[in-house]
């Protein structure tokens, strides 16, 4: 759909007159969990990502997300839930995930990770552990 008019420029947004805990005006959040928060150590507000872990999928697919997960050994191999399977790809030493709820074949050089969204814990398949340790 063609917009009715061009975006008004110049445009400035300092978030100071926006409601706390609300989404930032005009920004469309795609699983980023951004909201308005007071600026720490200064006046006014900021737009802040407020979720330090993978958030629940708020009623829509998580496909295509790519975030880095922290690997915490104590979380490994608990309560595996097949419906929460993710695939993991090692990229330059980081671990990126891609939702595989649609059961697409994993791309090459990936390893299977299990993610318990209820407990928000990471359950790692043993074969990934072996791959990651090499």
């Amino acid at each position, binding site marked *: 759909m063609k917009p009715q008019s061009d*975006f008004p*420029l*110049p*445009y*400035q*947004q*300092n*978030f100071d007159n926006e409601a706390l805990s609300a989404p930032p005006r005009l*920004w*469309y959040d795609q699983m*980023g*969990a951004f909201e308005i*928060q007071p*600026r*720490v150590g200064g006046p*006014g*507000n*900021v*737009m*802040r*990502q*407020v*979720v*330090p*872990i*993978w*958030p629940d999928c708020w009623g829509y697919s998580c496909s295509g997300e*790519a*975030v*880095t997960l922290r690997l915490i050994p104590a979380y490994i191999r608990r309560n595996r839930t097949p419906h929460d399977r993710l695939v993991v790809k090692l990229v330059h030493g*980081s671990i*990126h995930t891609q939702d595989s709820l649609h059961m697409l074949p994993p791309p090459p050089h990936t390893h299977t990770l299990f993610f318990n969204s209820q407990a928000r814990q990471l359950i790692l398949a043993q074969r990934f552990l072996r791959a990651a340790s090499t």
Partner: protein
Amino acid sequence: MSFEVNLEEHGALTVGKKDAMVTLDSKGTWSFQGKNGNLAFAPKQWHTVALNYGTSQQTVTVDGKVVCNVLSGSSKAKLPISLSLDRYIFASFDNFAVVNSTSQV
């Protein structure tokens, strides 16, 4: 386009128009239009980032210092502008601005 950013942990910020995205990593690297290099972009402090999409060159500036200057391949995309982090970390953004001039968006 300019804004302030404060990453509260290490992470990589990717921002810009869809055909001209810059990635700034708090571990000290940047990439833009196929080029890359090093920069000071430490977490837990505010940084000012500016992207200048000119007709003949594109410039990325961090804390007043030019990080990258691409002389060819001007961006043809307009809005939207996207902003993402490679990790779910606490991160704040402030004083976002887009200016339309002969040298900017």
